[in-house]
């Protein structure tokens, strides 16, 4: 049972890392390639063919798939806060790579997000239910 927990824990960490990194850089490339406005419904589609936007979308597809994989064994109420670290990294990316101005208030908010993540990820087990596929455990 202990080794089963260790297996689940390291698998959860590896998958959560992929989820966070693809979310952060997917969003970064999306913003990098995005024009200042999308005037028509058609422009919502044509924008997808810009190289940076296409790269961003690709990373976000990986994000979606890795997140679904994570959700196949972990609770949603665990996954949400555990992967919220991505919000912090996005702020750094916005500040350093996109030259966005981040106020002291925003940084304070970022610290609160980190605190919330620590509260949830620190103590609780990642899983309430065993998968109902009946696999060996």
């Amino acid at each position, binding site marked *: 049972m202990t080794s089963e927990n260790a297996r689940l824990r390291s698998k959860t960490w590896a998958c959560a890392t992929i989820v966070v990194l693809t979310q952060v850089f997917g969003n970064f490339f999306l913003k990098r390639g995005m024009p200042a406005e999308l005037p028509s419904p058609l422009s919502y589609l044509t924008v997808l063919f810009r190289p940076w936007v296409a790269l961003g979308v690709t990373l976000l597809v990986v994000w979606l798939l890795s997140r679904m994989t994570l959700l196949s064994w972990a609770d949603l109420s665990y996954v949400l806060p555990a992967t919220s670290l991505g919000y912090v990294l996005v702020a750094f990316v916005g500040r350093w790579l996109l030259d966005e101005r981040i106020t002291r208030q925003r940084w304070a908010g970022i610290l609160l997000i980190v605190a919330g993540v620590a509260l949830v990820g620190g103590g*609780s087990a990642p899983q309430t239910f065993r998968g109902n596929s009946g696999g060996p455990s």
Partner: protein
Amino acid sequence: MKWLLIAIIVAATSVGEVLQAIGMRRHGEIRDFRPGALGRAASTLARNGVVIGSVVAMAVSFFAYLGLLSFTDLSFAVPVTAVTYVVETALAKYVLKERVNWLRWAGAAVVLCGVALVSL
């Protein structure tokens, strides 16, 4: 326009993610990460109605997000969509019947306060 897009994003994301969690739980834990097995899992999931519903909701949310991102900062658009946290933690408890202990509630609440500060 800004807040309308945010409302669409929050609603569609919350619905999409809860459907995703239901669909993946029905599918069961993914244990085999070899390409063939992952492909089989993908083809099973592509025929799962709940998963399809979640992907449609995510697509709606994605295009609303594209619109929002075109005229706001990245460091505004991403945190503001985390309003979904509270909605989803509540849905995790009442729809998915997950045991959400007080620590998780506290964590979600603190994360939400942080998100509010980031976005205001």
